[in-house]
């Protein structure tokens, strides 16, 4: 008999079927829209059809007369409660319901509470809003023009549409390197606006109980505790009277980090009616109004020697944050972790300047498994390296191998001050080249070219920065990015672990049980993981930025080790020996040199709850907690190779193969790691080839449904070919690094590099994503499109 692992594998780390799956395959998942409460009402949001307009009047009389309408909330209603505006995660404010102007198409204007979903929607049609349309700023590159329409006239010291300037690195030294470089590359690149589009849209059920004064919110949130604190700050309700429950979440990818206006409207609706109010947005509302990703307009420059040594990278970025600065990232990092644009290479100098601007588009920018904008950074540097290969007529694999950081350089502090913890980059890249059969692929490509076929091979090598973070540097709205766990061993030897991070499909109920199992010699089946309920779990900032394993995984291992040490003292009391004479193995403390004299954890747990006399200062029971403050981020890496075929007649790209070698340190459950990598690779194909939230010249959103916003299906995705190297993080208790976003970060440049490589016979050096058939066709003609605007 093997353990519970697949194929009888060890019962702690290793492939283990998920504890979550039995309920999901039976249709017994419990998502927010599955919540049914007695007397529950339904909310619906009235949204602006205009990207920019002054509100002259809102007439709700007809809607109020609808027999099934129970409440109508307007900006004015909220203003009376001081709730018309809410703080964003970037220290700006956002209109909950517009009072003065609407600033993007789809902005929230009014909220109807009715007895059923359909009546709530019907009543929206009865609200009459009088608008005075204003000129809109759609093109980020025109946002700072003199005379550009002012979007945020609500701010007391508005400086046009400018939000922030942020820079990092050394401008002077970087200039000096560029001055004497033999080769320089310059390229403008757009990382277009895309959307995380989890299959479950965002929503809440809000229930304010006027008797107890308690507000319970079932919410699609990746960060239940942070939401609870924000609700307290915004509504003035005492925090202990607020309970946020995050049940099963149908994918998040960053989309479910912020608080959205609809949530606050539902809360207000419940307070006004005294009944629970459910609000679930529809797909168009999700795509048009909630946290998008990217929209980075980058100018990248690279300096190198003729022999292919990369010397410096310089970047200027225009960041389109939409109508409100609602990006979600550590507050000292307005451009997220874009500072790691130095990539995986040993540079002499680097410099970057980012300017954030307002436009008449939905707010957001940091989402979609982006690791706080490492996605944009990796895309930029990996495209530049490929352009250098193009310029020097060098092989892109050899060029990377020549410049990659060497294992002996770790820990390595890059030119912008980030200290990469560990890695063996050449080994990771070599493995990917081996799996791909790279030399053979290149031969095949030459043969195909000779026949007029367009085959391309694209490589990317990425360094991630995840696991935010050290509280000295990283907070969100003043909340340090540390997370707590509580671990209790029951009298009969089973365990309950309470965590603050929130799974959206990552399988925390399984992997966190495995960590406890590994540390305490238990079966993962004997560890219950409690999460997603602020009344039942310790405080922490939640799951995004691949931070669950780096932060809460570390906290879990440390709490388990604390339990182990307490167990040692109890075992010593049981055996009447000195604790120092005990050794730990396989879930049991035993007397050194006399293995028969020992006690299992279950025996110890029972004794810890019994009348056994314990040494002075040692408490009964067997439990521990930990709030983990990471000493540094962790830095996963990976080497990806994509092989594509391009139809020269139509511009259609087909992904033939995709090889991904990831190094995320120690793997707790390789099955789950591989699943997460698969997911991110599909993201990469989507972003590189299909996805874009574009706008027309008038500010109309052109990506407002799945008919227009195209996501990859089973037909666009190949069978993934994975490999792994394992370089443990030296500072993480179990050596794990986090992997949830690696493939989303690393794969888009591999796909784009492959397509551009295929188009080499046409002399194409760059074309912006998404590389749709139209875009590829235009690139072949030498006239690539601007993919953010419906103009060319």
């Amino acid at each position, binding site marked *: 008999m093997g353990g519970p692992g697949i194929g009888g594998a060890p019962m702690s780390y290793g492939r283990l079927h998920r504890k979550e799956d039995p309920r999901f395959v039976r249709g017994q*998942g419990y998502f927010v829209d599955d919540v049914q409460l007695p007397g529950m009402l339904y909310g619906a949001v009235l949204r602006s059809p205009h990207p920019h307009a002054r509100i002259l009047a809102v007439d709700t009389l007809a809607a109020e007369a609808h027999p099934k309408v129970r409440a109508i909330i307007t900006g004015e209603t909220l203003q009376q409660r001081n709730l018309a505006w809410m703080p964003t995660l970037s220290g700006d404010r956002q209109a909950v319901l517009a009072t003065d102007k609407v600033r993007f198409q789809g902005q929230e204007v009014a909220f109807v509470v009715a007895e059923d979903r359909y009546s709530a929607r019907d009543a929206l049609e009865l609200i009459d809003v009088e608008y005075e349309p204003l000129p809109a700023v759609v093109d980020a590159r025109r946002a700072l023009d003199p005379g550009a329409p002012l979007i945020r006239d609500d701010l007391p010291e508005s400086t046009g549409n400018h939000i922030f300037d942020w820079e990092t690195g050394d401008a002077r030294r970087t200039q000096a390197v560029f001055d004497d470089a033999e080769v320089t590359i310059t390229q403008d690149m757009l990382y277009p606006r895309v959307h995380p*589009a989890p299959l479950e849209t965002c929503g809440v059920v809000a229930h304010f109980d006027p008797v107890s004064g308690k507000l319970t919110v079932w919410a699609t949130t990746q960060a239940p505790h942070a939401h609870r604190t924000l609700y307290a700050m915004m509504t003035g309700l005492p925090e202990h009277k607020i309970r946020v429950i995050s049940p099963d979440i149908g*994918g998040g990818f960053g989309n479910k980090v912020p608080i959205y206006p609809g949530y606050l409207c539902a809360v207000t609706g419940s307070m006004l009616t005294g009944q629970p109010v459910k609000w679930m947005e529809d797909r168009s509302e999700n795509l048009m109004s909630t946290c998008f990703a990217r929209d980075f307009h980058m100018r990248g420059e690279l300096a190198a020697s003729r022999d292919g040594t990369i010397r410096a990278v310089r970047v200027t970025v225009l960041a389109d944050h939409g109508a409100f600065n609602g990006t979600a990232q550590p507050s000292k990092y307005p451009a997220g972790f874009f500072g790691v644009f130095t990539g995986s290479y040993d540079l002499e100098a680097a410099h970057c300047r980012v300017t954030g601007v307002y436009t008449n588009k939905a707010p957001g920018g940091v989402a979609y498994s982006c690791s706080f904008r490492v996605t944009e950074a990796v895309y930029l540097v990996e495209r530049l390296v490929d352009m250098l290969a193009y310029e020097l007529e060098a092989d892109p694999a050899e060029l990377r191998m020549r410049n990659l950081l060497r294992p002996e350089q770790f820990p390595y502090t890059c030119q912008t001050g980030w200290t990469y913890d560990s890695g063996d980059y050449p080994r990771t890249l070599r493995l990917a080249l081996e799996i791909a059969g790279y030399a053979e692929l290149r031969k095949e490509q030459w043969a195909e070219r000779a026949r007029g076929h367009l085959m391309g091979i694209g490589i990317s090598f990425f360094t991630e920065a995840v696991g935010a973070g050290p509280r000295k540097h990283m907070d969100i709205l003043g909340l340090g990015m540390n997370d707590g766990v509580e671990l209790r061993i029951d009298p009969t030897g089973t365990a309950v672990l309470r965590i603050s991070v929130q799974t959206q*499909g990552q399988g925390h109920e399984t992997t966190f049980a495995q960590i406890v199992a590994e540390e305490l010699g238990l079966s993962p089946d004997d560890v219950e993981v409690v999460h997603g309920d602020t009344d039942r779990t310790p405080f922490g900032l939640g799951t995004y930025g691949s931070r669950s394993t780096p932060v809460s995984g570390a906290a879990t291992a440390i709490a388990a080790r604390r339990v182990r040490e307490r167990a040692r003292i109890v075992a010593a009391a049981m055996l009447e020996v000195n604790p120092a004479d005990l050794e730990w193995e396989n879930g049991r403390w035993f007397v050194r040199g006399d293995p028969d004299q020992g006690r299992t954890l279950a025996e110890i747990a029972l004794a810890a709850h019994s009348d056994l006399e314990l040494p002075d200062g040692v408490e009964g029971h067997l439990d521990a907690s930990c709030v983990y403050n990471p000493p540094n981020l962790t830095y996963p890496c990976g080497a990806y190779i994509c092989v594509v075929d391009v139809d020269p007649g139509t511009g259609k790209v087909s992904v033939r193969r995709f090889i991904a070698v990831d190094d995320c340190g120690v793997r707790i459950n390789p099955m789950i790691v591989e*699943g997460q990598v698969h997911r991110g690779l599909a993201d990469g194909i989507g972003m590189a080839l299909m996805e874009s939230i574009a706008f027309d010249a008038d500010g109309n959103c052109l990506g407002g449904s799945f008919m227009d916003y195209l996501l990859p299906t*089973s037909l666009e995705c190949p069978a993934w070919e994975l490999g792994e190297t394992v370089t443990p993080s030296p500072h993480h208790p179990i050596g794990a690094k986090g992997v949830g976003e690696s493939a989303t970060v690393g794969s888009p440049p591999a796909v784009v590099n492959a397509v551009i490589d295929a188009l080499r016979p046409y002399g194409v050096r760059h074309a912006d994503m998404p590389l749709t058939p139209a875009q590829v066709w235009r690139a072949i003609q030498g006239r690539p499109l601007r993919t953010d605007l419906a103009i060319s």
Partner: protein
Amino acid sequence: MTIRIAMTVNGTEYARDVEPRLLLIHFLRDELGLTGSHWGCDTSNCGSCVVWLDAKPVKSCTLLAAMADGHAVRTVEGLETDGKLDPVQQGFIECHGLQCGFCTPGMMMTARWLLDHHPDPDEAQIREAISGQICRCTGYENIVRSIRWAARGSAGHP
């Protein structure tokens, strides 16, 4: 205004007075409490809402409940028989064919239909069969493997 509709869902007869415009997905979820089928896009693109109407997979977000009047519907809740998981359900567990679990019911209903008509599908057939549905978590490969696993399980040689 309401109309009377009656249908069999997972073998049980139901009759309800509903609004004529009520969507089948909302009927199943809100009226019958069968929340295993999900609503994801409104435009027939994502397939989270796939159920069977008379033994054929349909997208229940673009069918009126009234169109199912007099017909037989099967949902994910009807896959398990006599306390035993359908091989498709077991396959999704064995091959890590799900992560967040939101698309899973719809995917499994399509998979069951495929295997009923093509007991031993190859990878291309499976990919074609699920191509009208979206999964944001798995990159599809483990769904393909799950369905292959179920095909082998159904054929009696796991």
